[in-house]
């Protein structure tokens, strides 16, 4: 673990609470903040330990969010390095956008517990405190850590361990060929190694693919309701929620802002987001809502495009339809209890007819949403789900090494490079299963802390 670069991570649990805090620590902290933060009160210099209100813009000058930001100069900070905290809206999308912005800027995503690690390294915690923490870590021995891992993440560590073991066997074979050229070693069929590896690449792929489901299950999916004003978005929202939340009136455009509500659909935590009605308008308040809605369409896991089944399709519907092109969309025909006159044959999306008045089609819609979100993933005791980005990244890196290995094998590259790739593949897996290699030792123990704590 490098302790000298600048790291970033959410300091609050994602998807809970109205405000999220993103923390940055390291020498580039201030520079990183100043690059994208536009304080409301123009100041030449940000004073340390003072909270500023302003806008966070992305690299193209687009507003990401309205935030409060504080810069804290070393050493009076949590990590004793320069620290920046950005308090943004508690939406997962916003947090993700900020993280993405700064990762592209060149900051590194913190390993779990890395802020605490830095606090240790920089001596902010004194020996007695540190030893107390160490005792805690100590009591959670490797075996109980493994147990916790198994509980938290199903059978992930066992699966990874199995894969590691097989890869290790291949490594042993390759190393033996290298180090004992004059011994009569079994001549392993190259195709068998290829087959074995392909099998494990598939296994790794399945686990990697579970990240989306795993992430949805742990962080929740975002579903966006889109449609022209008064098409019945708020009614559907309320129906799914089972209680009145959004302000429902007959006046088009009543729902001015994004409303987020959490619920569970088919076991998947879902955040339903109601948008302001999507229509071309000159009302500045509404225009802002429309702009936001368009952005939301891009980042939602699923969009429900609502069309009034009892009315003819008009310009507004077409407008909303166009805005949804290219995204994951269900077309919902509302007001199925009335005479159906809308011609939606132009749409290429899966179509569902519902009535919020009679409840018609709602269950079917729920099932379809759950099916879509979970994809091929069928929850059972044998499945492995990953929900941490760190695990996902390690698996991708491992997979990359194995692909390289196979390419090198096919191209009859020297054995040494096969060994190189497999060593690195094992190193990456080791970052998940907590093996002690030369490097991930300290990283390993601190991984039992939450990110950003």
């Amino acid at each position, binding site marked *: 673990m*490098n*302790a000298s670069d600048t790291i970033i991570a959410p300091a609050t649990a994602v998807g809970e609470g109205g405000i999220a805090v993103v923390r940055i620590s390291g020498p580039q902290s201030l520079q990183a903040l100043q690059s994208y933060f536009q304080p409301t009160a123009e100041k030449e210099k940000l004073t340390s330990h003072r909270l500023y209100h302003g806008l966070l813009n992305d690299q193209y000058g687009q507003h990401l969010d309205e935030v409060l930001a504080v810069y804290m100069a070393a050493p009076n900070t949590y990590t004793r390095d320069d620290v920046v905290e950005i308090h943004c809206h508690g939406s997962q999308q916003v947090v993700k956008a900020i993280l993405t912005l700064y990762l592209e800027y060149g900051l590194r995503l913190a390993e779990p517990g890395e802020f605490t690690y830095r606090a*240790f*390294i*920089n*001596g902010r*915690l*004194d*020996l007695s405190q*540190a*030893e107390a923490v*160490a*005792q805690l*870590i*100590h009591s959670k*021995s*490797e075996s109980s850590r493994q147990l916790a891992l198994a509980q938290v993440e199903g059978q992930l560590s066992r699966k990874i361990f199995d894969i590691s073991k097989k890869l290790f066997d291949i490594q042993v074979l390759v*190393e033996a*060929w*290298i*180090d*004992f*050229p*004059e011994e*009569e070693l079994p001549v392993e069929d190259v195709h068998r190694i290829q087959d074995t590896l392909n099998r494990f690449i598939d296994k790794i792929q399945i686990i990697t693919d579970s990240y989306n489901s795993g992430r949805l299950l742990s962080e929740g999916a975002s579903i966006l309701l889109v449609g022209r004003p008064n098409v019945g978005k708020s009614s559907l929202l309320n129906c799914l929620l089972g209680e009145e939340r959004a302000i429902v009136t007959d006046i088009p455009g009543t729902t001015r802002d994004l409303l987020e509500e959490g619920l569970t659909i088919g076991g998947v935590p879902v955040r339903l987001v109601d948008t302001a009605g999507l229509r071309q308008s000159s009302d500045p308040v509404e225009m802002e809502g429309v702009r936001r809605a368009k952005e939301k369409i891009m980042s939602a896991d699923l969009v429900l495009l609502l069309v009034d089944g009892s009315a003819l399709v008009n310009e507004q519907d077409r407008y909303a339809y166009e805005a949804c092109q290219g995204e994951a969309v269900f077309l919902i025909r509302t007001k199925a209890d009335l005479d159906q006159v809308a011609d939606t044959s132009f749409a290429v999306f899966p179509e569902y007819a519902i009535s919020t008045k009679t409840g018609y089609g709602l269950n079917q819609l729920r099932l379809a949403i759950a099916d879509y979100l979970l994809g091929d993933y069928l929850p059972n005791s044998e499945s492995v789900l990953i929900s941490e980005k760190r695990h996902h990244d390690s698996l991708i890196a491992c997979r990359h090494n194995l692909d390289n290995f196979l390419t090198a094998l096919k*191209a009859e*590259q*020297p*054995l*040494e*490079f096969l*060994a*190189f790739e497999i*060593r*690195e593949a094992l190193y990456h897996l080791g970052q998940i299963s907590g093996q*002690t290699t*030369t*490097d991930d*030792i*300290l990283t*390993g*123990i*601190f991984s039992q802390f939450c990110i950003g704590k």
Partner: protein
Amino acid sequence: MSSYGKNYDVIVVGAGHAGCEAALASARMGCSTLLLTMGLDTVAQMSCNPAIGGLGKGHLVHEIDALGGEMGLNIDATGIQFRRLNMKKGPAVRAARAQADRMAYSARMKQVVEAELLLDLKQGVVIDLLTEGGRVAGVRTREGLDFNARAVVLTTGTFMRGLIHIGLHNYSGGRAGEPASEGLSDALRGYGFIVGRLKTGTPARLAARSIDYSRLERQPGDESTKPFSFLTERIDRQQVDCYIAHTNERTHQIIRDNLDKSALFAGVIEGIGPRYCPSIEDKVVRFPEKNSHQTFIEPEGRNSAEMYPSGMSTSLPPEVQLQYFRSMVGLEQVEIMRPGYAIEYDFVEPTQLKPTLETRALPGLYHAGQINGTSGYEEAAAQGLLAGINAALGCREQEQLVIGRDQGYIGVMVDDLVTQPTLEPYRMFTSRSEYRLLLREDNADQRLTELGRMIGLVSERRWQTYQQKREQIAAGRHLLQENMITPANKELIESLRLGELRNGVSLEALLRRPEISIDRLLDICTELQKFSAQALEQLEVSIKYEGYIKRQMEQVARFREYEEIAIPEGIDFFQLQSLSTEVREKLASVRPATLGQAGRIQGVTPAALAVLHIHLRKLQRG
């Protein structure tokens, strides 16, 4: 006791492969040096196979040479068959190996030692050390003489309480026909050292004229030989052949029928033998499904009447040895000239050493070679060189030399020795190195010669050779970048089979293609023809595998971070209350020099390392 009178800077005990390098290094660094050996006729003796190099070992020899040691020059001068192994398996795992003329190897090394001005070679058996104020102050010999010195390097090989086993008979001896050294290991125990016992073995030597070579597979040397030393330009010597023979079911039956007569299997031997070099009876018992084992029959010298059958070490009685050899094709009439035997000897647990090879218990005392639980001439020589360098640096009151795991196999070996308890004789393999791609034979000089120069071991000639190679590599790189092949160059494109070329391409980019070797570019860029083969090889490797090398360097950068956090020598590990007793004891016994090293000690948990890290921070802050 009488004192010899003359005061030495450094005394080296034992004139094997470790001792010779240690003594030469010390003397060449300007320290008056005494090399004491039990027998003046067995300097640099090859007790087992008559060969130098191989995987990991060839790498060590190149490193010894780059630092200014003697082994590479000695084998270049006395080798009778040269081969490079693994030529197709990658640049870093290519390794040089040579058969030596055993007598010539020993004779030449003795001459070099004798010719060294500040070096005295004397016969004597050391039975104890002299100490003064907690430091080593010299040695005492069985003959009643005290020799004083400021530093002592012990390289005792298999001699300390050596016990030779042939069948169920055993007798005291340091090597066949030579007495053991009694008393010294007891004396070391008296100074508080933990002394253990290891075992190794050697096969019988066969009479060359009793072998039917027409029935064996011939194994010639390489057509063009590549020297070990960066100073040797070429080796123009008639090479000799080795031969390959095989055991068969009958051989194995004879061995199985006589296991009760093997010292190893009868439970007579307490020392632990190496897994990677099992005796023939071990192989037969452990791999019953294998119905044949191969053996290389290697000549012991150009004019020697003896042949060495590799992989056939044993502790079976001589009559059984003869019986099983004669069961093999081509060896039906074979005569044994010396029987094979197993030997047990004392070693001193190397976790009691600093990474400089100085003992922690007795400042000024260094250990190198088999006394540290290693096996192999090259491993011994590399340690001898490092111990000799540090003994001399110590006398000059200069900072000690530590070689990192990312700098050389010497560093990998010493780090392994001082952090891992010895479970079997330690031998070098390339897989022991995490940063193998950087630790190649071809670049050993680029890694270590500047270090050798700083210490004062690198001669003017070596320095010039090194710099010339460096310059050629830099110039060569420039040439390859500047020279382009354009689509108009149809003939060239055809002959290199480049296929369709849309834009011009530099020779450097061409060289990155797996099928293009640097040899094929020599005609295109004729300036390269004046460069040495060594420079060209390294140039090729550094360009062709640049991507991998870069990735390896990133790994090294991660490794370096913990390696550079030093642990002060006087630290009291028992003060760290939150560590388990077991971990505290482990740390206290190994006494790691860096945080990185502490992490490599088995049983030191990540949590323990965190506590240690914080403790170090606090110490640093005061």
